């Protein structure tokens, strides 16, 4: 008797659920279809292409693990991986830290608050190519503004973009600068979600501003921060546009800045070796997967969802 009742219940429930599912899937179908056609299918194709050699126009030959064997032994790939990590390790902490500071400052009641918010958000509105061009002018060796200032205060001019010691630094500066706006807006939204009553309570208890920041602001903004860290990190690992625009291919410092995506571009679209290019991008995909998985695990230690 009991089991029969249960069965009956189950069927009834699943009927309702079925309709729920149908509608649910119908609603997300446009997005899912777009995702499959534009993202997932190319992902599979890229993975497949990495086992092939390409003669152009989609004419390919299966070469097994050849591309990966070459990849492991390729010093250029190793160098590009190191460059990518160097860039990421500089841009993520620096970018997130600075944007948190700006967000906290802009969250207070200062005069012209919205003007400042607009100014800091401006880099997001500008096209990356335009940003890179302007920074390239600033960094110019002979007539650049930065070197002009250096000369003005009696410092020697620096070949920012062409010496292997400073080229990556220049790219990092642009990377940090351009990531500030977006991160700042997201963090600001997170900060505004924190109830003011917490701060009032802390005030009564006699907590100073530093203590309030570390005991209230930081833990409560941590979910937003986690989001910002993950997106900045993935974006940094995929750095390409600033390098492409600011470092010419005749520049001898290119080897010490070129990232994995740059190398992928070079092989796939300049040398037309799409198979090897795909292998490089699959390598980057694995790196990003692993790092993101680690982050998702580690977040339990520092992200407070309540």
């Amino acid at each position, binding site marked *: 008797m009991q089991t029969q009742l249960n069965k009956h219940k189950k069927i009834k429930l699943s009927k309702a659920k079925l309709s729920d599912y149908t509608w649910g899937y119908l609603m997300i179908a446009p997005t899912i279809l777009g*995702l499959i056609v*534009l*993202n*997932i299918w*190319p*992902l599979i*194709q*890229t*993975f497949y292409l990495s086992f092939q050699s390409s*003669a*152009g*126009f*989609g*004419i390919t030959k299966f070469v097994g693990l050849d591309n990966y064997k070459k990849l492991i032994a390729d010093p250029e790939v190793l160098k590009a991986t190191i460059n990518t990590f160097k860039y990421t390790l500089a841009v993520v902490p620096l970018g997130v830290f600075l944007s948190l500071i700006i967000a906290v400052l802009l969250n207070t009641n200062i005069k012209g608050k919205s003007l400042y918010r607009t100014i800091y958000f401006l880099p997001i509105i500008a096209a990356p190519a335009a940003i890179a061009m302007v920074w*390239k*002018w600033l*960094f*110019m*060796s*002979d*007539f*650049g503004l930065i070197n002009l200032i250096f000369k003005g205060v009696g410092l020697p001019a620096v*070949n*920012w*973009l*062409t010496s292997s010691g400073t080229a990556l630094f220049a790219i990092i500066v642009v990377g940090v600068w351009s990531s500030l706006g977006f991160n700042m807006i997201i963090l600001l939204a997170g900060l505004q979600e924190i109830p003011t009553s917490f701060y009032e309570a802390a005030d009564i208890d006699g907590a100073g501003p530093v203590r309030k920041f570390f005991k209230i602001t930081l833990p409560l903004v941590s*979910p*937003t921060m986690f*989001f910002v860290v*993950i*997106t900045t990190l*993935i974006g940094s690992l*995929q750095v390409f546009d600033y390098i492409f625009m600011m*470092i*010419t*291919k*005749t*520049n*001898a*410092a*290119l080897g010490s800045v070129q990232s994995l*995506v740059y190398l*992928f571009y*070079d092989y*796939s*679209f*300049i*040398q*037309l*070796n*799409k198979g090897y*290019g795909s292998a490089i*991008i*699959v390598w*980057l*995909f694995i790196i*990003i*997967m692993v790092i*993101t998985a680690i982050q998702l695990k580690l977040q339990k230690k520092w992200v407070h*969802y309540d």
Partner: protein
Amino acid sequence: MKKSLKKLVAMTACSLMLSTALTGCSTKTPTSGSSASSPVTLTYAIWDVNQEPGMKAMAEAFTKKNPNIKVKVEVTPWDQYWTKLEAAGTGGALPDVFWMHSSNFDKYSNADMLLDLTDKIKTSTEVKLSNFPTPLVDLYANNGKNYGLPKDYDTICLWYNKDLFDNAKIAYPDSTWDWAKFLDVAQKLTDTSKGIYGYTANLDGQQGYYNFVYQNNGTILPDDKKTSGFSLPATKEAIQFYVDLSLKYKVSPTQEQFDGGMNAADMLKSGKVAMATYGSWMVADFKAAAQKDTTLHLGLAALPKGKTNATIYNGLGNVIANNSKHAQEAWKFVEYMGTEEANVIQANSGAAIPAFKNVDKGWIEATKEFDLSAYPAMLPISHIFAYSKSKPTWDPLQDKYLKEAFYGKTTVSDACDKIAKEMNAALATEK
């Protein structure tokens, strides 16, 4: 709320990761030719915006004769042109008619992307291959079949700033000049305190060191295309001379200065350099600069002589996509583009030196600002811009290794040996 934020994090992370892979996918461009029966619109893809008015004028003249066939000229900048065409070729959606370059011709003809024009040319009453210089015709022939008709050709000349020569009371360059005279004058005209240089020896093959290589009896790629010319002493010697111009004689900014933001062509346009070598396709650019800035007085002459007189030439061709839906109409257009009438229009527009023999006078006359006669005069002493099937593989090697020499970090000889080694490997894969 917090939970949904967590989801948002995960979803954004996922889609960002996926977009990494997305960059590996090439997009298909839709065909623009209509399937309608009577009026046909052909797509004509080109890469030089300076030549767009000229190409449009030719297309309009063609439509006047064939009212049923319209031609849409599509400009894609050089850097994206080949990427776009390859994607279009993969998707079977190439433009009906498009410009072809010698560096890419073998790849396209070997992959069966181009329509074989051999028989069409033979039976044509309007075009004859003998109207064009043979090397230009051969550029677009593969295994005895013609896939394209020559459109234009280009050579390299020496440009100079007349005012800088006048101020220093030095006679303008002429065809009697050799390397020694060139270097001597370049040294006299260099005044780094004013930021003025004698020459711009930037890392550029076709408009730069290639010319010096052939003037020194060296080569980039021997005629048999089996081994690299970079290991030859004559080639190395010429490149050494070219590199010395900036590093040793200091008559040119260094490549490091160019990469740091200096622009060689801008220097010529702003009177910061006395001499520079440029291809005929740059004429439109300098013409516009001279019109804008009336204090700029430029002239041009033949390249100085090394052991011999030499320059690099190259020419574009008009080709038809093998799977064009309007192959008949496309051929009519290409055929017309190969006639004297069309070449005269091209010449008068000043777009490019027409490939049709003896029509170049119109091109010279179309420009009043400079005497361009030096360009066509270089053709008899010119060498074809080196090309082979594996050029996409070996072409980047030159910049990759030579830049170390141009920065003075390694010797020219070492850099050339490295290029030769990898270039030989690439050439060996050709069959």
